[in-house]
């Protein structure tokens, strides 16, 4: 057809122009803002200095402390001695360390991975098609738990769980049950779920908004049940969001100190999760060197968690091109 030739002819010069325009780009890539190296460095230096002073230095200092027998009081406070890796080997052999690590894992898996992520997803899924008052109310309530200061929340929960005048005992007609003493781990897990679900809920709500309705409808037309729709359409689509969410809430929960405000690690050491364990060790018992060593170990565990999730995330990108 004669009509097809003019557009073809018109394309040729445009293509050539595109190539010519692409040539100078690499040069600009090296210096996107056009500031020049010295000025760019001047802009970055203050931030780097702050990071060095408040992040890098304390971290290095902690590692150094971990290699000494530094104590809060006494002889070793005045003149700490290098003890090499003794603190680390002691910690790894120490029963209370592995006990605390076990508790922390329970806390992270129970309250973050299962609790917050699960409940957050559930709320987001149930609310996905709702608009209006109900949705806003639920979001407001969940978010309130998230934005209130820890100390306020801890106080509220102590009032809720109190043995004599606690709201929960009144509601369940179980007077005299000391929840924090009888079920200490369960209490802080439920507490942390209540406190932190908002983040997962918001993240999943945003992720669900990205699932094309036509995909869900195709599955529904094929006769897929609710669970099959989740498995075949929703989860593959939001896998990246799920992993990112799990990474963040795992790390936050791992490092969370708020349980201390409820139980102070007790009764005995039943809720002595890592941060509480270190706090007691370093500041109550005064074993700064030992505490620092365990802090470094905790940092390493955090790193391992992060690396595992990041690997999963990266594998997903290779899995699903485009």
């Amino acid at each position, binding site marked *: 057809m004669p*009509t097809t030739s003019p557009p073809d002819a018109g394309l040729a010069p445009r293509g050539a122009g595109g190539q010519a325009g692409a040539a100078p780009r690499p040069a600009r890539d090296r210096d996107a803002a056009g500031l020049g190296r010295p000025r760019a460095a001047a802009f970055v230096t203050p931030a780097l200095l702050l990071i060095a002073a408040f992040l890098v230095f304390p971290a290095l200092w902690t590692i150094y402390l971990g290699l000494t027998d530094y104590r809060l009081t006494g002889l070793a406070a005045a003149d700490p001695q290098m003890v090499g890796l003794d603190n680390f080997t002691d910690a790894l052999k120490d029963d209370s360390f592995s006990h605390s690590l076990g508790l922390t894992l329970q806390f992270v898996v129970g309250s973050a991975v299962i609790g917050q992520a699960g409940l957050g997803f559930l709320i987001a899924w149930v609310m996905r098609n709702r608009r209006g008052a109900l949705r806003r109310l639920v979001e407001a309530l969940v978010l309130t738990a998230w934005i209130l200061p820890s100390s306020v929340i801890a106080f509220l929960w102590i009032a809720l769980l109190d043995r004599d005048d606690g709201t929960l005992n009144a509601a369940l007609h179980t007077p005299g049950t000391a929840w924090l003493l009888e079920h200490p781990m369960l209490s802080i897990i439920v507490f942390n779920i209540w406190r932190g679900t908002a983040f997962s809920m918001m993240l999943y709500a945003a992720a669900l908004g990205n699932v*094309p309705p*036509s*995909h869900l*409808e*195709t*599955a*529904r*037309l*094929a*006769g*897929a049940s609710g669970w*099959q729709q989740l498995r*075949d*359409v929703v989860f*593959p*689509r939001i896998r990246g969001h799920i992993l990112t969410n799990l990474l963040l809430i795992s790390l936050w929960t791992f490092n969370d100190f708020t349980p201390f405000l409820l139980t102070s690690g007790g009764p005995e050491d039943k809720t002595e999760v890592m941060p509480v364990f270190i706090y007691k060790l370093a500041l109550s018992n005064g074993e700064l060197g030992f505490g620092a060593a365990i802090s470094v170990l905790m940092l390493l565990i955090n790193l391992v968690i992060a690396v595992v999730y990041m690997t999963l995330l990266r594998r997903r990108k290779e*899995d*699903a*091109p*485009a």
Partner: protein
Amino acid sequence: MADISMAALTKVYPGGVRALDGIDLTIADGEFFALLGPSGCGKTTLLRTLAGLETASSGSVGIGGRDVTALPPGRRDVAMVFQDYALFPHMSVSDNIAYPLRIQKVPGATRREKAAQTAAELGLTDYLDRRPGQLSGGQQQRVALARAMACHPQVFLFDEPLSNLDARMRLEARTFLKRLQRELGVTTVFVTHDQAEALALADRIAVMESGRIRQLGTPAEVFRYPANTFVASFIGSTPMNLLDGQVAGGRIDVAGALLPVPEGLEEGLAEGEKLVYGIRPEYLGLAEGPAEGALRGAVRVVENLGSAQLVTLEGESGFVQAVVDEDRRLTPGEIGHAVPRRDRALLYRDGELLNRAPAESGPAGRPGEGEAA
């Protein structure tokens, strides 16, 4: 074995929008049926209500003699192809095609065999292991079709499946779709707002406007005898000229031009009655000089249509468009005389057509041809 029937079907969306307003429609078994209409007239809503993705506010839907109004989408035995194809990006082409079978718990080997077979029919054999993201738009469309075909539904529902393709691919896909539907003989409802597509593909067309069907008929009927001025102005690649006129002495007086009354309509016209005279630009010829029964006007715009030109004349009757031969030289400002073809002229009283379609152009393109197998 599956005709579709709708009775007084109404859909009111929560916001109060009446997207379907008492639709009564029967679509025969094996028919290729197109829904046509301007944006927002309720085509998609009608399709989704048939599929069960929207619940009807009132009225009923039947498929193959079974009342499905209250059935969920998965139990209506229909397959739908969406405008974005809705292929699952994390599944291979083969898994995508076999997905409905997987939900029906067909064993894996049978499933793969069936997928390969369907893919072969659509020329997709080489792509079975690819992901949808690695396919062109046309290939994706065929995968979506294959997925719809694989589970042998009673009804196909297509919501603008060709609109993501470029013009050339569209023509190819259109022919392909028509052939496929003929071979399979599955009742098909097709939404489009490309009327050329509807005219080319469909056995019958319903033209919709704000939730109602304004005309139902074969492509030829809808094109030749638009039942009302809405359909008349909507259908056709160039809009029909709709001119206000008045009956005067056995002719129609359109702003001074006396035009002959279309055949068979001489009776029943009252002297002085106000009517609308409709004529497609294709059926208006430009006379060489002043002529009897011609619309007079100054040439304002000349548009090149490739093998013809579309001329817009401005006269006392307003703007009139005519399609003229490509060789004709026309200069803006020059006076033109447009002569209508008498056998193509239409008359509308209160917006409704007066012409009667000849009987033989009635049930053309018999549905059910494809069910020989």
